[in-house]
Protein backbone atom coordinates (compact mmCIF):
# COMPACT_ATOMS: atom_id res chain seq x y z
CA UNK A 1 0.00 0.00 0.00
CA UNK A 2 2.75 2.37 0.99
CA UNK A 3 4.71 1.21 -2.07
CA UNK A 4 2.92 3.77 -4.17
CA UNK A 5 4.59 6.59 -2.26
CA UNK A 6 7.99 5.00 -1.97
CA UNK A 7 9.68 5.97 -5.15
CA UNK A 8 9.03 9.69 -5.12
CA UNK A 9 11.54 11.01 -2.64
CA UNK A 10 9.99 14.38 -2.35
CA UNK A 11 6.41 13.30 -1.82
CA UNK A 12 4.67 12.71 1.48
CA UNK A 13 2.77 9.50 2.04
CA UNK A 14 -0.84 9.75 3.27
CA UNK A 15 0.40 9.05 6.78
CA UNK A 16 2.70 12.02 6.52
CA UNK A 17 5.96 10.13 6.06
CA UNK A 18 8.85 10.53 3.67
CA UNK A 19 9.62 6.94 2.88
CA UNK A 20 12.84 7.48 0.98
CA UNK A 21 14.30 9.40 3.89
CA UNK A 22 13.31 6.64 6.26
CA UNK A 23 14.78 3.99 3.97
CA UNK A 24 17.99 5.99 3.84
CA UNK A 25 18.11 5.89 7.62
CA UNK A 26 17.57 2.13 7.38
CA UNK A 27 20.65 1.94 5.16
CA UNK A 28 22.61 3.76 7.81
CA UNK A 29 21.32 1.37 10.41
CA UNK A 30 23.06 -1.50 8.63
CA UNK A 31 26.41 0.23 8.55
CA UNK A 32 29.24 -0.19 11.04
CA UNK A 33 28.89 1.47 14.41
CA UNK A 34 30.35 4.93 14.96
CA UNK A 35 30.47 6.55 18.37
CA UNK A 36 31.51 9.92 19.73
CA UNK A 37 31.93 11.12 23.31
CA UNK A 38 32.57 14.73 24.33
CA UNK A 39 35.13 14.98 27.13
CA UNK A 40 36.12 18.18 28.90
CA UNK A 41 39.42 18.44 27.02
CA UNK A 42 38.63 16.72 23.75
CA UNK A 43 36.49 14.22 21.88
CA UNK A 44 36.82 10.45 21.59
CA UNK A 45 35.68 8.87 18.33
CA UNK A 46 35.35 5.16 17.76
CA UNK A 47 34.31 3.18 14.71
CA UNK A 48 33.75 -0.46 13.96
CA UNK A 49 36.23 -1.75 11.43
CA UNK A 50 34.58 -4.14 8.97
CA UNK A 51 37.01 -4.14 6.06
CA UNK A 52 39.69 -6.21 7.70
CA UNK A 53 40.55 -7.91 4.41
CA UNK A 54 44.26 -8.71 4.09
CA UNK A 55 44.10 -8.20 0.33
CA UNK A 56 43.33 -4.49 0.75
CA UNK A 57 46.21 -2.45 -0.61
CA UNK A 58 47.69 0.60 1.14
CA UNK A 59 45.20 1.28 3.92
CA UNK A 60 43.91 4.83 4.28
CA UNK A 61 44.30 6.83 7.48
CA UNK A 62 41.04 5.37 8.69
CA UNK A 63 38.11 3.41 7.33
CA UNK A 64 35.45 5.70 8.69
CA UNK A 65 37.06 8.83 10.10
CA UNK A 66 37.87 11.61 7.62
CA UNK A 67 39.71 14.87 8.22
CA UNK A 68 37.88 17.91 6.88
CA UNK A 69 40.23 20.67 7.99
CA UNK A 70 42.60 21.52 10.81
CA UNK A 71 39.81 21.67 13.35
CA UNK A 72 37.15 19.26 12.14
CA UNK A 73 36.88 15.58 11.35
CA UNK A 74 33.87 13.36 10.66
CA UNK A 75 33.03 9.74 11.33
CA UNK A 76 30.77 8.33 8.64
CA UNK A 77 27.99 5.77 8.80
CA UNK A 78 26.17 4.56 5.70
CA UNK A 79 26.88 4.44 1.98
CA UNK A 80 30.56 5.32 1.64
CA UNK A 81 30.24 6.57 -1.94
CA UNK A 82 27.55 9.03 -0.84
CA UNK A 83 29.70 10.07 2.10
CA UNK A 84 32.67 10.84 -0.16
CA UNK A 85 30.63 13.42 -2.04
CA UNK A 86 29.66 15.14 1.20
CA UNK A 87 33.19 15.03 2.57
CA UNK A 88 34.57 16.65 -0.59
CA UNK A 89 31.97 19.38 -0.36
CA UNK A 90 32.72 20.02 3.32
CA UNK A 91 36.44 20.31 2.60
CA UNK A 92 35.78 22.79 -0.20
CA UNK A 93 33.28 24.73 1.87
CA UNK A 94 35.73 25.13 4.74
CA UNK A 95 38.50 26.30 2.43
CA UNK A 96 36.26 28.76 0.62
CA UNK A 97 35.32 30.31 3.95
CA UNK A 98 38.96 30.49 4.97
CA UNK A 99 39.85 32.20 1.67
CA UNK A 100 37.05 34.73 2.02
CA UNK A 101 37.35 35.59 5.68
CA UNK A 102 40.88 34.52 6.60
CA UNK A 103 39.35 32.89 9.66
CA UNK A 104 38.49 29.22 10.13
CA UNK A 105 34.84 28.38 9.51
CA UNK A 106 32.87 27.95 12.74
CA UNK A 107 32.01 24.28 13.22
CA UNK A 108 28.27 24.71 13.48
CA UNK A 109 28.16 26.79 10.31
CA UNK A 110 29.96 24.07 8.37
CA UNK A 111 27.68 21.36 9.75
CA UNK A 112 24.64 23.50 9.01
CA UNK A 113 25.65 24.16 5.41
CA UNK A 114 26.29 20.49 4.59
CA UNK A 115 22.99 19.57 6.24
CA UNK A 116 21.24 22.13 4.04
CA UNK A 117 22.59 20.22 1.04
CA UNK A 118 21.45 16.89 2.50
CA UNK A 119 18.03 18.35 3.15
CA UNK A 120 17.70 19.76 -0.37
CA UNK A 121 17.64 16.21 -1.68
CA UNK A 122 14.62 15.42 0.46
CA UNK A 123 12.63 18.38 -0.72
CA UNK A 124 13.11 18.90 -4.46
CA UNK A 125 14.70 17.45 -7.57
CA UNK A 126 13.29 13.97 -7.27
CA UNK A 127 16.65 12.39 -6.46
CA UNK A 128 17.27 10.02 -3.60
CA UNK A 129 18.68 11.36 -0.34
CA UNK A 130 22.26 10.72 0.82
CA UNK A 131 22.35 7.45 2.74
CA UNK A 132 24.76 8.86 5.26
CA UNK A 133 24.74 9.84 8.90
CA UNK A 134 27.78 11.60 10.25
CA UNK A 135 29.38 12.43 13.56
CA UNK A 136 31.22 15.73 13.39
CA UNK A 137 34.02 16.28 15.87
CA UNK A 138 35.21 19.86 15.79
CA UNK A 139 36.84 22.71 17.66
CA UNK A 140 36.52 26.47 17.20
CA UNK A 141 37.47 29.56 19.15
CA UNK A 142 33.92 30.49 20.07
CA UNK A 143 32.51 27.27 21.43
CA UNK A 144 35.49 24.97 21.98
CA UNK A 145 34.99 21.25 21.41
CA UNK A 146 31.70 20.30 19.77
CA UNK A 147 30.12 17.01 18.72
CA UNK A 148 27.30 17.03 16.16
CA UNK A 149 25.28 14.28 14.52
CA UNK A 150 23.39 14.52 11.23
CA UNK A 151 21.17 12.04 9.41
CA UNK A 152 19.82 11.64 5.84
CA UNK A 153 16.92 13.99 6.55
CA UNK A 154 19.37 16.86 6.89
CA UNK A 155 18.58 17.37 10.54
CA UNK A 156 21.45 17.84 12.98
CA UNK A 157 21.96 18.45 16.67
CA UNK A 158 24.76 18.82 19.18
CA UNK A 159 25.54 15.90 21.46
CA UNK A 160 27.55 15.06 24.55
CA UNK A 161 27.70 11.41 23.55
CA UNK A 162 26.04 9.58 20.69
CA UNK A 163 26.23 6.62 18.38
CA UNK A 164 25.17 5.84 14.79
CA UNK A 165 25.09 2.67 12.68
CA UNK A 166 24.20 -0.85 13.70
CA UNK A 167 23.28 -1.42 17.34
CA UNK A 168 23.16 2.32 17.83
CA UNK A 169 20.02 2.06 19.95
CA UNK A 170 21.68 -0.29 22.44
CA UNK A 171 24.83 1.84 22.49
CA UNK A 172 22.87 5.06 22.95
CA UNK A 173 20.87 3.75 25.86
CA UNK A 174 24.05 2.56 27.52
CA UNK A 175 25.69 5.95 26.93
CA UNK A 176 22.61 7.55 28.42
CA UNK A 177 23.10 5.62 31.64
CA UNK A 178 26.84 5.73 31.95
CA UNK A 179 27.79 9.19 30.63
CA UNK A 180 28.85 11.75 33.21
CA UNK A 181 29.59 15.41 32.65
CA UNK A 182 33.15 16.74 32.47
CA UNK A 183 34.83 13.44 31.75
CA UNK A 184 38.52 13.32 31.05
CA UNK A 185 39.71 11.83 27.76
CA UNK A 186 40.84 8.68 29.56
CA UNK A 187 37.47 8.22 31.19
CA UNK A 188 35.81 8.75 27.81
CA UNK A 189 38.10 6.12 26.28
CA UNK A 190 37.13 3.60 28.96
CA UNK A 191 33.46 4.36 28.44
CA UNK A 192 33.86 3.96 24.67
CA UNK A 193 35.38 0.51 25.00
CA UNK A 194 32.77 -0.50 27.54
CA UNK A 195 29.85 0.52 25.32
CA UNK A 196 31.39 -0.97 22.17
CA UNK A 197 32.00 -4.22 23.96
CA UNK A 198 28.35 -4.58 24.87
CA UNK A 199 26.85 -3.42 21.61
CA UNK A 200 29.01 -4.63 18.75
CA UNK A 201 27.72 -7.16 16.26
CA UNK A 202 30.85 -9.31 16.55
CA UNK A 203 30.94 -11.82 19.33
CA UNK A 204 33.87 -10.34 21.18
CA UNK A 205 35.51 -6.95 20.97
CA UNK A 206 39.10 -7.12 19.79
CA UNK A 207 41.52 -4.36 18.88
CA UNK A 208 41.60 -5.17 15.17
CA UNK A 209 37.83 -4.82 14.83
CA UNK A 210 37.65 -1.26 16.05
CA UNK A 211 39.44 2.02 15.49
CA UNK A 212 39.60 4.60 18.24
CA UNK A 213 40.69 8.19 17.74
CA UNK A 214 41.25 11.08 20.10
CA UNK A 215 40.59 14.67 19.03
CA UNK A 216 42.38 17.20 21.28
CA UNK A 217 44.24 20.45 21.32
CA UNK A 218 47.78 21.13 22.37
CA UNK A 219 49.66 24.44 22.26
CA UNK A 220 47.20 26.13 19.95
CA UNK A 221 46.81 23.28 17.44
CA UNK A 222 44.16 20.61 17.05
CA UNK A 223 45.27 17.02 16.71
CA UNK A 224 43.43 13.88 15.62
CA UNK A 225 45.34 10.77 16.58
CA UNK A 226 44.37 7.18 15.97
CA UNK A 227 45.19 4.98 18.91
CA UNK A 228 47.73 2.30 18.04
CA UNK A 229 46.44 -1.27 18.20
CA UNK A 230 48.46 -1.95 21.34
CA UNK A 231 46.77 0.87 23.22
CA UNK A 232 43.31 -0.37 22.22
CA UNK A 233 44.27 -3.85 23.35
CA UNK A 234 45.30 -2.45 26.72
CA UNK A 235 41.99 -0.60 27.06
CA UNK A 236 40.08 -3.80 26.32
CA UNK A 237 42.22 -5.70 28.78
CA UNK A 238 41.63 -3.04 31.47
CA UNK A 239 37.91 -3.32 30.86
CA UNK A 240 37.95 -7.09 31.18
CA UNK A 241 39.93 -6.88 34.40
CA UNK A 242 37.58 -4.26 35.80
CA UNK A 243 34.55 -6.37 34.97
CA UNK A 244 36.17 -9.43 36.52
CA UNK A 245 37.00 -7.51 39.67
CA UNK A 246 33.41 -6.26 39.83
CA UNK A 247 32.09 -9.82 39.53
CA UNK A 248 34.40 -10.99 42.29
CA UNK A 249 33.26 -8.15 44.51
CA UNK A 250 29.61 -9.00 43.86
CA UNK A 251 30.24 -12.67 44.66
CA UNK A 252 31.62 -11.76 48.03
CA UNK A 253 28.65 -9.61 49.08
Amino acid at each position, binding site marked *: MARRYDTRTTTFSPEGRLYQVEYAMEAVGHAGTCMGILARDGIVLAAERRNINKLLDEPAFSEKIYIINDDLCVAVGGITADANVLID*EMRLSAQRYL*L*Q*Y*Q*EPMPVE*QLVSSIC*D*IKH*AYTMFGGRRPFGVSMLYSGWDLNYGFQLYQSDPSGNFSGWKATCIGSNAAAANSMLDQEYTENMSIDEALSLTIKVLNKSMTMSKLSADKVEVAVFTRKEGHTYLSLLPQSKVEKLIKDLEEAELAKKEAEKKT
Partner: protein
Amino acid sequence: MSASFYTKPANNGNAGVAMETSWDSNPGRQRTLQPITTGASVLAIKYNAGVIMVADTLGSYGSLAKFRSIPRVLRVNDATVAAASGDLADMQFLNTVVENHAIDEEIHEHGIAYSPASLHSWLTRVMYNRRSRINPLWNTYIVAGTEAGQPFLGYVNMLGVAFKEDCLATGFGSHLCLGLLREALDAAGGYAGLTEETATSALEACLRVLYYRDCRAYNQYQLANVPVAKPAQVSGPHFLQSDWSVAKLVKHYTE
Protein backbone atom coordinates in the same frame (compact mmCIF):
# COMPACT_ATOMS: atom_id res chain seq x y z
CA MET B 1 21.86 30.45 3.07
CA SER B 2 20.47 28.77 -0.05
CA ALA B 3 20.19 25.03 -0.18
CA SER B 4 21.22 23.91 -3.64
CA PHE B 5 22.04 20.60 -5.19
CA TYR B 6 25.64 19.67 -4.83
CA THR B 7 27.55 19.97 -8.09
CA LYS B 8 31.04 18.63 -8.53
CA PRO B 9 33.53 21.46 -9.23
CA ALA B 10 33.51 22.08 -12.98
CA ASN B 11 36.60 20.87 -14.78
CA ASN B 12 37.36 23.96 -16.85
CA GLY B 13 40.80 24.92 -18.09
CA ASN B 14 40.70 28.52 -16.93
CA ALA B 15 41.70 27.80 -13.34
CA GLY B 16 38.13 28.33 -12.30
CA VAL B 17 37.86 31.92 -13.50
CA ALA B 18 34.68 32.55 -15.46
CA MET B 19 35.74 34.02 -18.79
CA GLU B 20 32.37 34.50 -20.42
CA THR B 21 30.80 37.84 -19.68
CA SER B 22 27.15 38.32 -19.15
CA TRP B 23 27.10 41.35 -21.42
CA ASP B 24 27.63 39.18 -24.49
CA SER B 25 24.27 37.59 -24.02
CA ASN B 26 22.84 40.65 -22.27
CA PRO B 27 23.79 43.74 -24.30
CA GLY B 28 21.93 46.09 -21.98
CA ARG B 29 24.45 45.26 -19.24
CA GLN B 30 27.50 47.50 -18.91
CA ARG B 31 30.82 47.62 -17.10
CA THR B 32 31.82 50.40 -14.75
CA LEU B 33 33.78 52.88 -16.88
CA GLN B 34 33.81 55.89 -14.61
CA PRO B 35 32.43 56.90 -11.23
CA ILE B 36 29.41 59.23 -11.43
CA THR B 37 28.37 60.45 -7.99
CA THR B 38 31.43 60.37 -5.79
CA GLY B 39 32.49 60.68 -2.18
CA ALA B 40 35.80 62.26 -1.24
CA SER B 41 38.36 61.31 1.38
CA VAL B 42 37.98 58.99 4.33
CA LEU B 43 40.44 59.34 7.21
CA ALA B 44 41.08 57.02 10.14
CA ILE B 45 43.56 56.65 12.98
CA LYS B 46 44.09 54.22 15.86
CA TYR B 47 44.36 55.52 19.40
CA ASN B 48 45.23 53.93 22.72
CA ALA B 49 41.76 52.51 23.34
CA GLY B 50 40.26 52.10 19.90
CA VAL B 51 40.03 53.63 16.46
CA ILE B 52 38.35 56.75 15.00
CA MET B 53 37.25 57.30 11.41
CA VAL B 54 35.82 60.37 9.68
CA ALA B 55 34.22 61.02 6.31
CA ASP B 56 32.40 64.10 4.99
CA THR B 57 28.80 63.84 3.88
CA LEU B 58 29.13 65.19 0.34
CA GLY B 59 28.11 63.39 -2.86
CA SER B 60 29.75 65.20 -5.76
CA TYR B 61 28.33 65.03 -9.27
CA GLY B 62 31.55 65.82 -11.07
CA SER B 63 32.44 69.25 -9.80
CA LEU B 64 28.89 69.97 -8.66
CA ALA B 65 28.39 69.61 -4.91
CA LYS B 66 25.02 67.95 -5.50
CA PHE B 67 24.14 65.85 -2.45
CA ARG B 68 25.24 67.41 0.78
CA SER B 69 23.99 64.91 3.29
CA ILE B 70 25.10 61.45 2.17
CA PRO B 71 26.16 59.11 4.99
CA ARG B 72 29.35 57.31 3.97
CA VAL B 73 30.11 55.63 7.28
CA LEU B 74 28.48 52.25 7.87
CA ARG B 75 28.10 50.66 11.29
CA VAL B 76 28.38 46.90 10.65
CA ASN B 77 28.16 45.75 14.26
CA ASP B 78 29.31 46.78 17.73
CA ALA B 79 32.95 46.16 16.88
CA THR B 80 33.14 47.09 13.20
CA VAL B 81 32.58 50.16 11.01
CA ALA B 82 33.41 50.77 7.36
CA ALA B 83 33.48 53.86 5.16
CA ALA B 84 34.04 54.31 1.44
CA SER B 85 35.11 56.94 -1.05
CA GLY B 86 34.53 56.76 -4.78
CA ASP B 87 31.34 55.92 -6.63
CA LEU B 88 28.49 56.23 -4.16
CA ALA B 89 26.13 53.91 -6.04
CA ASP B 90 28.71 51.13 -5.79
CA MET B 91 29.22 51.98 -2.12
CA GLN B 92 25.52 51.79 -1.41
CA PHE B 93 25.24 48.48 -3.25
CA LEU B 94 28.12 46.91 -1.31
CA ASN B 95 26.88 48.36 1.98
CA THR B 96 23.51 46.66 1.44
CA VAL B 97 25.26 43.33 0.85
CA VAL B 98 27.32 43.80 4.03
CA GLU B 99 24.24 44.75 6.04
CA ASN B 100 22.39 41.68 4.78
CA HIS B 101 25.32 39.51 5.82
CA ALA B 102 25.21 41.09 9.27
CA ILE B 103 21.48 40.41 9.49
CA ASP B 104 22.05 36.80 8.43
CA GLU B 105 24.48 36.40 11.27
CA GLU B 106 22.05 37.82 13.77
CA ILE B 107 19.38 35.43 12.52
CA HIS B 108 21.60 32.43 13.11
CA GLU B 109 21.97 33.45 16.74
CA HIS B 110 25.45 31.99 16.95
CA GLY B 111 26.77 35.01 18.72
CA ILE B 112 29.51 35.01 16.08
CA ALA B 113 29.59 38.33 14.22
CA TYR B 114 31.77 39.84 11.52
CA SER B 115 35.09 40.87 12.97
CA PRO B 116 36.81 43.83 11.30
CA ALA B 117 39.52 41.46 10.02
CA SER B 118 37.05 39.04 8.46
CA LEU B 119 35.08 41.89 6.87
CA HIS B 120 38.30 43.34 5.50
CA SER B 121 39.26 39.95 4.08
CA TRP B 122 35.84 39.41 2.50
CA LEU B 123 35.84 42.91 0.98
CA THR B 124 39.29 42.29 -0.47
CA ARG B 125 38.10 39.14 -2.20
CA VAL B 126 35.01 40.88 -3.59
CA MET B 127 36.92 43.92 -4.87
CA TYR B 128 39.68 41.81 -6.40
CA ASN B 129 37.23 39.48 -8.11
CA ARG B 130 35.32 42.40 -9.61
CA ARG B 131 38.55 43.99 -10.91
CA SER B 132 39.54 40.62 -12.35
CA ARG B 133 36.35 40.68 -14.41
CA ILE B 134 37.15 44.23 -15.56
CA ASN B 135 34.00 45.48 -13.86
CA PRO B 136 35.19 47.07 -10.63
CA LEU B 137 33.29 48.52 -7.72
CA TRP B 138 34.81 51.99 -7.96
CA ASN B 139 35.51 52.49 -4.28
CA THR B 140 38.22 52.66 -1.70
CA TYR B 141 37.07 51.21 1.59
CA ILE B 142 38.46 51.64 5.07
CA VAL B 143 37.42 49.05 7.65
CA ALA B 144 37.88 50.04 11.29
CA GLY B 145 37.10 48.31 14.55
CA THR B 146 38.36 46.28 17.44
CA GLU B 147 39.24 42.62 17.67
CA ALA B 148 40.53 40.69 20.67
CA GLY B 149 40.99 43.92 22.60
CA GLN B 150 43.13 45.49 19.87
CA PRO B 151 42.17 48.24 17.40
CA PHE B 152 42.00 47.23 13.72
CA LEU B 153 42.37 49.41 10.64
CA GLY B 154 42.35 48.08 7.06
CA TYR B 155 42.27 49.51 3.53
CA VAL B 156 40.89 47.96 0.33
CA ASN B 157 40.67 49.69 -3.03
CA MET B 158 39.01 48.98 -6.37
CA LEU B 159 42.04 47.00 -7.56
CA GLY B 160 41.81 44.69 -4.58
CA VAL B 161 44.97 46.15 -3.05
CA ALA B 162 44.59 45.66 0.70
CA PHE B 163 46.70 46.45 3.72
CA LYS B 164 46.48 47.27 7.41
CA GLU B 165 48.03 50.28 9.15
CA ASP B 166 47.86 52.49 12.21
CA CYS B 167 46.51 55.43 10.19
CA LEU B 168 44.81 55.41 6.79
CA ALA B 169 43.36 57.83 4.26
CA THR B 170 41.75 57.63 0.84
CA GLY B 171 41.78 59.97 -2.16
CA PHE B 172 43.07 63.46 -1.51
CA GLY B 173 43.40 62.58 2.14
CA SER B 174 46.23 60.23 1.32
CA HIS B 175 48.13 63.10 -0.31
CA LEU B 176 47.37 65.96 2.06
CA CYS B 177 46.65 64.31 5.39
CA LEU B 178 48.48 61.03 5.80
CA GLY B 179 51.64 62.91 6.66
CA LEU B 180 49.85 64.86 9.37
CA LEU B 181 48.35 61.70 10.85
CA ARG B 182 51.71 59.94 10.82
CA GLU B 183 53.28 62.93 12.58
CA ALA B 184 50.62 62.73 15.27
CA LEU B 185 51.39 59.02 15.77
CA ASP B 186 55.14 59.63 15.87
CA ALA B 187 54.73 62.44 18.39
CA ALA B 188 52.81 60.08 20.67
CA GLY B 189 55.29 57.24 20.17
CA GLY B 190 52.75 55.01 18.45
CA TYR B 191 48.98 54.65 18.75
CA ALA B 192 49.29 53.29 22.27
CA GLY B 193 50.33 56.78 23.36
CA LEU B 194 47.61 58.62 21.49
CA THR B 195 44.54 59.72 23.45
CA GLU B 196 41.04 59.87 22.02
CA GLU B 197 41.04 63.67 22.22
CA THR B 198 44.35 64.05 20.41
CA ALA B 199 43.27 61.59 17.73
CA THR B 200 39.95 63.39 17.21
CA SER B 201 41.57 66.81 16.97
CA ALA B 202 44.20 65.46 14.56
CA LEU B 203 41.43 64.13 12.30
CA GLU B 204 39.51 67.40 12.54
CA ALA B 205 42.60 69.36 11.59
CA CYS B 206 43.01 67.07 8.58
CA LEU B 207 39.39 67.55 7.55
CA ARG B 208 39.94 71.30 7.71
CA VAL B 209 43.02 71.06 5.49
CA LEU B 210 40.95 69.03 3.05
CA TYR B 211 38.10 71.53 3.06
CA TYR B 212 40.55 74.33 2.27
CA ARG B 213 42.48 72.50 -0.40
CA ASP B 214 40.31 69.74 -1.95
CA CYS B 215 37.65 71.18 -4.22
CA ARG B 216 35.42 68.15 -3.72
CA ALA B 217 35.54 68.21 0.08
CA TYR B 218 32.87 69.50 2.43
CA ASN B 219 32.54 70.98 5.90
CA GLN B 220 29.93 68.58 7.24
CA TYR B 221 31.07 65.15 8.35
CA GLN B 222 30.35 61.93 10.20
CA LEU B 223 32.60 60.49 12.88
CA ALA B 224 32.84 56.86 13.94
CA ASN B 225 34.50 55.85 17.19
CA VAL B 226 35.03 52.16 18.01
CA PRO B 227 36.44 51.86 21.55
CA VAL B 228 38.02 48.59 22.57
CA ALA B 229 35.53 47.48 25.18
CA LYS B 230 32.46 49.44 24.18
CA PRO B 231 30.07 49.43 21.22
CA ALA B 232 30.83 51.41 18.07
CA GLN B 233 29.28 54.86 17.80
CA VAL B 234 28.65 56.76 14.58
CA SER B 235 27.93 60.40 15.27
CA GLY B 236 27.08 63.30 13.01
CA PRO B 237 26.59 65.44 11.21
CA HIS B 238 29.38 67.52 12.68
CA PHE B 239 30.20 70.95 11.27
CA LEU B 240 33.68 72.13 10.54
CA GLN B 241 34.62 75.67 11.47
CA SER B 242 36.80 77.27 8.83
CA ASP B 243 38.30 80.68 8.30
CA TRP B 244 38.19 82.03 4.77
CA SER B 245 39.22 85.59 5.62
CA VAL B 246 42.44 85.04 3.67
CA ALA B 247 40.27 84.92 0.54
CA LYS B 248 40.14 88.72 0.30
CA LEU B 249 43.87 88.71 -0.26
CA VAL B 250 43.33 86.79 -3.48
CA LYS B 251 43.52 89.08 -6.47
CA HIS B 252 40.18 89.64 -8.25
CA TYR B 253 38.28 87.97 -5.43
CA THR B 254 35.09 89.84 -4.66
CA GLU B 255 32.85 89.24 -1.67
